[in-house]
């Protein structure tokens, strides 16, 4: 059954009922990040897309408070009208704010502006048993209590449904442009390392097997094409040059300095990829379940890890790889936020209650 609450009270009521009846829910925003984590079976799908209210926007404070179902595109549109932006946002206008936060799916400007979790000031969630819990604060700086915003960011819907978020916005830069060039992977990686070494705080340096895309932000004098690059005319990453017909995407994370070596291994084994140079993050397209282990093996060899961020069920038999320390802590946190275990159970299996 599809549940489509119109507001947070109705949503909380549905969660209370599901907890009481032991009905398992899948939590969805736009669905763009639904193929993350272990596959699991749900009795009902709760669509949080009906929570579309813009609660408060104070341009002078550069904070916007929106409900979880508001789209990234809507936030950017409203902010843009006042000369502001959400630079950590992913380039998916249809994605919901709640969804991108739950998936910790930030965008390519991470090199300069940091991960998306840094942009979340206050969060309101509906817990599995329908309590409404707020954490953080709407001011740009706050150390008042435990950092629930960071805990919820990337929790994949297993701790609660993000019903409201206060985001920190930034002024739109005086100038921003993407530059590009084409060549083989080695050339692109060398060029990328040159850009990182020569320029002060580039906004994004995205390398693919056959192209390089660089985003620069700032005053017009600084936003000029790096040597060997030309205007890209449209924002983005390599995009084109897809190898074969990939069925999924693995996000490998390694120490930033190891990224060129990882990318060279990927290209040698025929993987298409998008390396976010300087951040340590590399998205590799994969076509078969064994590819996941192959990419993870390369990342692990560089002291990193790899997660499947998109893929069919077969691709997600082991979406996370070995988990870091603290699984018992995660289990207890999850048990307190979702006592009946109705929120996407199995999706992040390591935090599910251990059977007695």
């Amino acid at each position, binding site marked *: 059954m599809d549940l489509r609450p119109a507001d947070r009270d109705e949503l909380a009521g549905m969660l209370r009922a599901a907890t009481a009846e032991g009905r398992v829910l899948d939590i969805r925003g736009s669905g763009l990040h639904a193929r993350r984590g272990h596959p699991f079976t749900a009795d009902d799908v709760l669509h949080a897309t009906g929570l579309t209210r813009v609660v408060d926007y104070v341009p002078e404070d550069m904070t916007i408070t929106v409900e979880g179902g508001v789209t990234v595109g809507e936030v950017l549109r409203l902010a843009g009208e006042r000369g502001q932006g959400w630079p950590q946002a992913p380039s998916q206008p249809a994605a919901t704010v709640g969804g991108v936060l739950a998936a910790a799916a930030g965008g390519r400007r991470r090199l300069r502006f940091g991960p998306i979790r840094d942009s979340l000031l206050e969060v309101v969630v509906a817990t599995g048993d329908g309590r409404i819990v707020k954490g953080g604060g709407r*001011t740009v700086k706050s*150390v008042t209590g435990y950092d629930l915003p960071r805990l919820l*960011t990337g929790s994949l819907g297993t701790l609660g449904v993000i019903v409201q978020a206060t985001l920190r916005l930034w002024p739109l830069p005086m100038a921003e442009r993407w530059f590009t060039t084409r060549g083989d992977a080695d050339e692109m990686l060398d060029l990328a390392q040159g850009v990182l070494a020569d320029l*002060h705080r580039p906004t994004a340096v995205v390398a693919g097997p056959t192209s390089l895309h660089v985003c620069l932000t700032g005053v017009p004098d600084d936003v000029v094409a790096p040597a060997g690059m030309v205007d890209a005319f449209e924002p983005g990453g390599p995009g084109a040059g897809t190898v074969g017909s990939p069925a999924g995407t693995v996000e490998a*994370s390694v*120490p930033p300095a190891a990224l060129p070596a990882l990318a060279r291994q990927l290209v040698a084994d025929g993987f298409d990829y998008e390396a976010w140079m300087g951040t340590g*993050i590399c998205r590799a397209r994969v076509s078969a379940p064994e590819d996941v282990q192959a990419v993870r093996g390369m990342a692990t060899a560089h002291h990193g890890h790899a997660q499947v961020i998109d893929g069919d069920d077969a691709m997600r038999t082991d979406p996370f790889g070995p988990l870091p320390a603290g699984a018992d802590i995660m289990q207890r946190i999850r*048990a307190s936020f979702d006592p009946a275990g109705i929120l996407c159970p199995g999706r992040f299996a390591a935090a599910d209650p251990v059977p007695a």
Partner: protein
Amino acid sequence: MTTTAGALADQLRHLLGPDRLLEGDLARNLYSHDGSIVGGDCGIVALPETTDEVAACMRMAHEAGVDVVPRGSGTGLTGGAVPLEGGLVISLARMRAMGEVDVANSCMWVQPGVLNLDVSTAIAHLGLHYAPDPSSQQACSIGGNVGTNAGGPHCLAYGVTVQHVLGVEMVRPDGQVVVLGGVAPDPPGYDLRGVVVGAEGTVGVVTRVLLRLTPLPPDVRTMLLDFLSVSDASAVVQAVIAAGVIPAALEMMDRNMAMAVEEFVHAGLPTDAAALLLVEVDGTPAEVETATAVVEHVAREHGVRTVRVAQDEEERALLWKARKTAFGAVARVKPSYYLHDCVVPRTRLVEIMEAIGEITEREGVMCLNVFHAGDGNLHPIIALDRSDPDETARAMSAGDQIVRACVAMGGTLSGEHGIGVEKRDYMPLVFDHDDLEAQACVRRAFDPDGRMNPDKVLPTGTRCGEVGLADTQVPEGTWI
């Protein structure tokens, strides 16, 4: 001392030797205080030097069922490091080793007792620095910074401690050592690293910290602006940011503070101005040029009297010294001070400054203001003589009213100092019962027995309910 505590002391003495287990009255008195006006009751003090020693101390405390209070330099201003009912204080002050700088990945591991400023000093020759710079950075430790998620003037553009800590090694309450986070970003699972930073020592003892290091900006310019009214200065703060410029730092000082500081530092601060703004812009030369022009233009539109641009590194250092020694300068006015750390939305700066003026005037106490205006992070300092009970009572009352006024304007209790014990009972002003209970559950997930820095952060009586935790057998009153 109870038998259990006595046995624990014997074990710790055996582990650390008599020099690194402090039991005397002098030490116990010293460790019953921090930079705040909170006084506590210290049992014994352990001074471990390695992670293994901390882990051994924690295992012993766990077996003895004794409370543990971790402590850095003790410069905190909210009583976070003050033991309230005996127990074991673990001081990390002797853990001062810095690892090798990982230049390629711009990071380094340090032990928690390393002082904040020593990090930037040690890596300056590599063109790097550690961005969070609390005013106490010559004295405060990285471990304490992690505990309180410390800030500082440059957090306006660069972000607070949690944005500069890639990972932590932590000894859990049962003595187990875990590493959370790391050089490779975004490990799978919940962001426990993000919870540990700012948890004020209530979830474990951090024994190593992986710091993100930031390139020194190619160019920097520091300006001192002075105004004849606080509201003009506040308006400039608002207008600079509205014009699309996020300065590296944007600090305000009122007249009382400027007078106290000038007597102390002789930086040439205009003491007849109502408010001073210290503005620093950094970046590429073109960015700095543009931002400087915007700041000057906006300031002139709002009646700035003079714009003083630091001409060289020496003058810049002097202006920053004036800012960062402000708290020390208060000692020339009164022997003690009571400081708050509330935050208001930037748009409410003028209102809150007026409110603070009215409150302190009504209570007949002297208030000096120096704060991170760009963040809306206030630091009203009420100067007092604590030997005068009447003045102390009026200072407390004024502080209470200031906190409530900030919250009423949509603000919060702390921007960078933390909650500790001093702001603990104000938490219900900003969080309701369910919010606080959820926080208590997060805390208990790390510390099921409730022995880590008890009675801090959450108001007494806040419990993690019985939700979902079948294995809870916590005795009444153990958990707060």
